[in-house]
């Protein structure tokens, strides 16, 4: 029996509807995630309208044209998808999922398709097809592992991304994501965790006290300092949940003495727009850049968060002036640079347990940051083990593409989407699983809990914080 395949019992649990029947009836949407009420009338027409508008104002068309000519249906990608490996459901084959949207494109936006539709009397997009897409695009974690294996270069992550964008324009997007983005863009606090500035100040003060007590040194979290080298944006949830990660980062800066700051105007790296709407993606990216500019910072520094890093790294240049935009770096790049320059030291006798590193898709899939965190870990963890496959080829935690924040689909995430990862973690026998990504951390913690794996999920800087040697300057 394939140990990656979910058992019948797991499948039943994972796929159980979480919504009330009357809600499903009203919304005509048999999916597991919650959606705010939307206009259900005339969905196919509105879907096509949104599709057309998006095509007109974007760059997707040329890629779709290419993909529909190339699609070889070879099923090669199926071997790579952790969702399909676990579910065994043929509808989870990446190529099948992509075809849901490519088929609509072919039928409604190409000459041949329109002619064929006319001749064969095929009426085209139906309500059922929209329902299937709404289900399918949120079963995919948009991890893009499958695209490595597609000879035709079809990027299923991109197609899922586009499909979600179109659906969201007709009102179909997980409420969990929409509500966060709404607070971030239009709410009083301006961030996804709804942390007001006074609460942020309290938290930072608390962290400073904690560091003074445990490490015996004064470490500062600078605020609103102008002209710094680095303006810092963690996933804002870190302020609530990842104290050790933040203290580790502050400790590294304390050791190097470089100038960094958090801006009280905007301090959230999270960008859930990346997962469902390019319009939101753009608006959020612009907020990050504007805050860094307001503070006259030289670099945008993103904390331990995969999608936050990716949305800044690849979309700050996109939306904020190309080469003129501020450079974006991830904290792991900074820390690695500082360590290799010998600007701080790590005690090799602190972390002796087995440590493994999980590559967040958003950081590793394109080969952006793979070796640096490993080098850092190997520099002080005696017992580093590697999971296979890893790096560019890593297996997604199962909560990618924003699905991690949709709490109502937790059973799906931890029994199907994360099943292969769970086996991988179990196999490695690690005690600490390092996951430098806010989303991965949340998902992996739920995963090891639900799958009963004896292992603690931590951030890279959590371990650095344990082992960093700080000189008491006072």
């Amino acid at each position, binding site marked *: 029996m394939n140990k990656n395949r979910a058992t019948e019992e797991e499948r039943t649990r994972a796929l159980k509807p979480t919504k009330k029947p009357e809600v499903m009836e009203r919304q005509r949407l048999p999916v597991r995630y919650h959606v705010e009420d939307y206009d259900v009338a005339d969905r196919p027409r509105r879907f096509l309208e949104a599709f057309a*508008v998006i095509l*007109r104002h974007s*760059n997707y*068309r040329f890629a779709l044209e290419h993909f529909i000519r190339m699609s070889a249906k070879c099923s090669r990608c199926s071997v790579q998808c952790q969702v399909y490996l676990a579910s065994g459901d043929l509808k989870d084959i990446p*190529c099948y999922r992509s075809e849901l949207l490519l088929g609509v494109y072919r039928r409604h936006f190409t000459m041949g398709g329109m002619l064929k539709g006319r001749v064969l009397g095929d009426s085209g997009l139906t309500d059922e097809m929209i329902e299937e897409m709404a289900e399918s695009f949120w079963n995919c974690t948009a991890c893009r592992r499958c*695209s490595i294996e597609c000879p035709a270069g079809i990027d299923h992550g991109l197609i899922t991304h586009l499909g979600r964008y179109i659906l969201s324009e007709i009102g179909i997007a997980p409420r969990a994501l929409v509500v966060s*983005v709404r607070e971030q863009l239009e709410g009083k606090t301006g961030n996804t965790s709804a942390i007001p500035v006074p609460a942020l100040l309290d938290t930072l003060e608390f962290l400073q006290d904690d560091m003074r007590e445990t490490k015996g040194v004064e470490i500062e979290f600078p605020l609103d300092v102008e002209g710094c080298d680095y303006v810092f944006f963690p996933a804002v949830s870190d302020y609530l949940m990842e104290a050790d990660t933040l203290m580790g980062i502050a400790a590294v800066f304390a050791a190097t003495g470089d100038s960094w700051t958090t801006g009280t105007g905007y301090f959230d790296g999270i960008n859930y727009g990346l997962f469902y709407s390019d319009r939101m993606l753009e608006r959020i990216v612009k907020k990050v850049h504007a805050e860094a500019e307001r503070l006259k910072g030289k670099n945008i520094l993103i904390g331990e968060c995969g999608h936050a890093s990716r949305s800044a790294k690849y979309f700050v240049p996109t939306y904020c002036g190309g080469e003129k935009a501020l450079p974006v770096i991830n904290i792991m790049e900074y820390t690695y640079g500082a360590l290799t320059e010998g600007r701080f030291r790590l005690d090799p006798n602190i972390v002796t347990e087995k440590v493994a590193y999980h590559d967040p898709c958003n950081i590793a899939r394109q080969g952006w940051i793979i070796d640096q965190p490993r080098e850092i870990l190997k520099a002080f963890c005696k017992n580093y083990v590697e999971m296979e496959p890893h790096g560019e080829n890593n297996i997604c935690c199962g909560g990618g593409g924003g699905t991690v924040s949709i709490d109502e689909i937790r059973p799906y995430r931890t029994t199907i989407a994360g099943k292969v990862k769970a086996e991988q973690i179990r196999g490695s026998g690690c005690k600490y699983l390092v996951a430098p990504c806010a989303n991965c951390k949340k998902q992996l913690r739920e995963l090891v809990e639900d799958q009963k794996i004896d292992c603690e999920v931590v951030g890279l800087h959590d371990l650095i914080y344990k082992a960093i040697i700080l000189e008491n300057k006072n």
Partner: protein
Amino acid sequence: MQTLLELAQGPLFRLTFAIMALGLLRIFILDIWGAIEAYRKAGDKNIPWKQAIKKTLGWLFPVRKAFGSRPVYSLLSILFHTGLILVPIFLFAHVELWKSGTGLGWITLPKSWADYLTLSTIIFGLALFFGRIAVRAASFLSRKQDYLWPLILIVPFITGYICAHAGVTPAGYRFYMLIHILSAELIFVLLPFTKIAHCVLMPLSQLVATLAWRFPPDTDEPVAISLNKKGVPV
């Protein structure tokens, strides 16, 4: 039969070949044109060329891919494609024909190689066909034409092999030759309009996939306006 053969070898060949050449050229140009447009509109013009080229070469000469996730399938596919590409272009008889028609010639495959490659193309084409039926994921994805293609593609190889080898009667020879040519011409015509267009689009794939993530800036506003959502809360 003789007239049919002459028709197939002469005008029909020129016509179908022209359809193929122009058709492929058209989609190739459209693809590049699309990519250039996308690049022009992209907010981020920093393209990792090296990475894209490396990946492209990786798929054009998939030596390493062969030992990856689906070794058997990959190997079959590679061997199938090798014959499919090499034999029609480098077969001695084909090159001779070109030479007599256009004066252009090029290197040719040694006869024994050509034979092996022809046979392997037939065998591996059939294997791919049966593989598609047998593998659950593949058969689920497949449309009718996906099954048909390997079969259509090996017809000219089978008939060509028969003409070159079996001691058929002259009438038989002409018959197989006719099928050989007509099937090749059918393929010519279908090429630009089906997934086999990947024969010319393949080198662009990785670039397209990379470029596709380079979005144009400032689309929030126009999209919102077009969808009547300007100023509408998130």
